[in-house]
């Protein structure tokens, strides 16, 4: 089985967000960057599928600046066979990035291209499905189970009020959600071996997109709490607050 995994480098989810000087992006000072957690489900699925097939190749691909190479090596340390760094500046437009990825992947002869369902920085949740559309192959997103057999993939995903089952022929693009598997930690031997695995650098030009970032801002400060009233009589006020103000109902 030949499987590609598309990987993003993102700030660790415990990062305290500070808006940078330009007002459109975070201040990266002191920020720890890690592989996108949802991509780890994709990496684990790819490594496990290739191991089960007994033959094949897993290739991890990332678009970005040189800092992304360290993230690629983390994937190699997990057990992926080789890495490709598409060297270029990603666009704020997911479709522009998807075009670059699709262009690189189309001649790779991949049975599967796996993504994480979304990246925990921009929450774009689009590039995987866009790549599938550009490649003209089947796509299922946010999968929570995967079985590959006889050139077909059987998946499930969570929808409101239930679990949706689907299947498609390979080659296909799938995006992976929490619950698909438990990603392995890079072993120490894996970390040492990663340095020796191939990491190819391919310069790319990311096309101009249709998206401009106008601003990035912190949410309004949590206002001091208020006691809305006493007893059951206060319930309508609570429900109204939860619906209109907090927007969680």
């Amino acid at each position, binding site marked *: 089985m030949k499987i590609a995994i598309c990987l993003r480098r993102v700030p660790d989810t*415990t990062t305290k967000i500070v808006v940078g000087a330009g007002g459109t992006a975070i201040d990266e000072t002191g920020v720890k960057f890690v592989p996108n957690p949802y991509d*780890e*489900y994709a990496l684990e699925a790819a490594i496990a599928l290739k191991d089960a097939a007994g033959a094949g190749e897993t290739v991890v691909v990332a678009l970005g600046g040189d800092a992304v190479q360290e993230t690629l090596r983390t994937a190699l340390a997990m057990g992926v066979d080789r890495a490709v760094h598409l060297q270029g500046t990603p666009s704020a437009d997911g479709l522009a990035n998807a075009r670059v990825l699709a262009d690189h992947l189309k001649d790779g002869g991949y049975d599967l291209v796996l993504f994480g369902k979304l990246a925990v920085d921009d929450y774009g949740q689009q590039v995987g499905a866009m790549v599938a559309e550009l490649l003209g192959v089947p796509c299922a997103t946010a999968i929570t189970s995967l079985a590959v057999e006889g050139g077909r993939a059987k998946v499930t995903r969570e929808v409101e009020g239930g679990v949706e089952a689907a299947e498609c022929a390979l080659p296909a693009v799938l995006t992976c959600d929490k619950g698909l598997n438990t*990603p392995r*930690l890079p072993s*120490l031997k894996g970390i*040492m071996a990663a340095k020796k695995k191939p990491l190819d650098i391919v310069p790319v030009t990311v096309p101009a997109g249709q998206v401009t970032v106008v601003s990035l801002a912190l949410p309004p400060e949590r206002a001091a709490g208020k006691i809305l009233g006493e007893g059951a009589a206060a319930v309508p006020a609570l429900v109204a607050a939860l619906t209109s103000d907090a927007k969680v109902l």
Partner: protein
Amino acid sequence: MAGSSEFTGVDFYDVDALLSEEERAVRDTVRQWVDDALMPVIGDCYIEGRFPKQLIPGMAELGLFGANLPEEYGCAGLNNVAYGLIMQELERGDSGIRSFASVQGALVMYPIYAFGSEAQKQHWLPKLAAGQEIGCFGLTEPDYGSNPGGMITTARETADGWVLNGTKMWITNGSQATVSIIWAKTGDIDDPKSVRGFIVPTNTPGFTAKDQKGKLSLRASDTSELHLQDVHVPKDALLPNSGGMKSPLMCLTQARYGIAWGGVGAAMACYDEARRYAGNRIMFGKPIGATQIQQERLADMLTEITKGQLLALQLGRLKDQGKATPARVSLAKRNNVNMATEIAREARRLLGGNGILVEYHSMRHMANLESVYTYEGTHDMHSLILGQEITGLAAY
């Protein structure tokens, strides 16, 4: 998932920038493993006095045993800074779990690697790395702790091998070990130069191990008494290149090196807990972290951790150059463990009443660290080692 560790470390002087990418990756993997696998069970294990042996396969799979030994023997082949970071992160979890790894790697695998025949290395090292064999290090005796050269365990040569007699005490992993490294006198009982090392499988007739009960420290670790009663071993049980006290002491130097890093890990855990608590605990209408006394506590902790980190890192770099002399290791072990015991105690105090509950970690670390202060060369012994190094005069 292998995503975010809840513990994000302590790094006030950007020591991370002094580490290589691999060293950071090693540290991050162990940090995540401790959060995922160890932290959920350690409180119960500590209270029950039980080592979480179900974690051994996972530790082996990650490659935590003998990580700085060569790849050809099934080990990870890491440098010594990476090895130290492993110990730091394990001890951030619990000193007992780090003790397990220290014994397996530095006190069992290392002596086989340093003093063993090629056949012994090929036979034992891969299995120990894989956690298929568990080892223990039999040096200390009931009456010979700080003075191991006075040991009275004997190894008498026979027609086809050796027969060992004696008792060892305070042996980590003893009761669960499948193999032991026993140090015994092959010559005159008063001649420490006759001490040699032996690989003794623990199922050899005459060998018994029994856990020592009633410990108030290192409760999530097996600490055992070993008894050897006419234990017959073949000729090839001898570690051929061992000879004199230098051999076991070289092993101890390896372990002490790891412990210097471990102290930093325990201190980080306690400081991190204290810092968070100080921010959350409201008293007299404000967080206790807004009071001068607690701020001074935290400032002292951060200072000592930062010093200890830099000490351990430079020691690691020296070790990789072959320049980590026993005295240099003594200085770091002595300092980093002592500062950790103080940080643990001060953190426990900052936590107030909650600090005596096992759901908070500082008191568990505080109790553990008393053992770490005492073993692998007591604090006082390291003072004398340094004293001799400085003055040229032995004051033991």
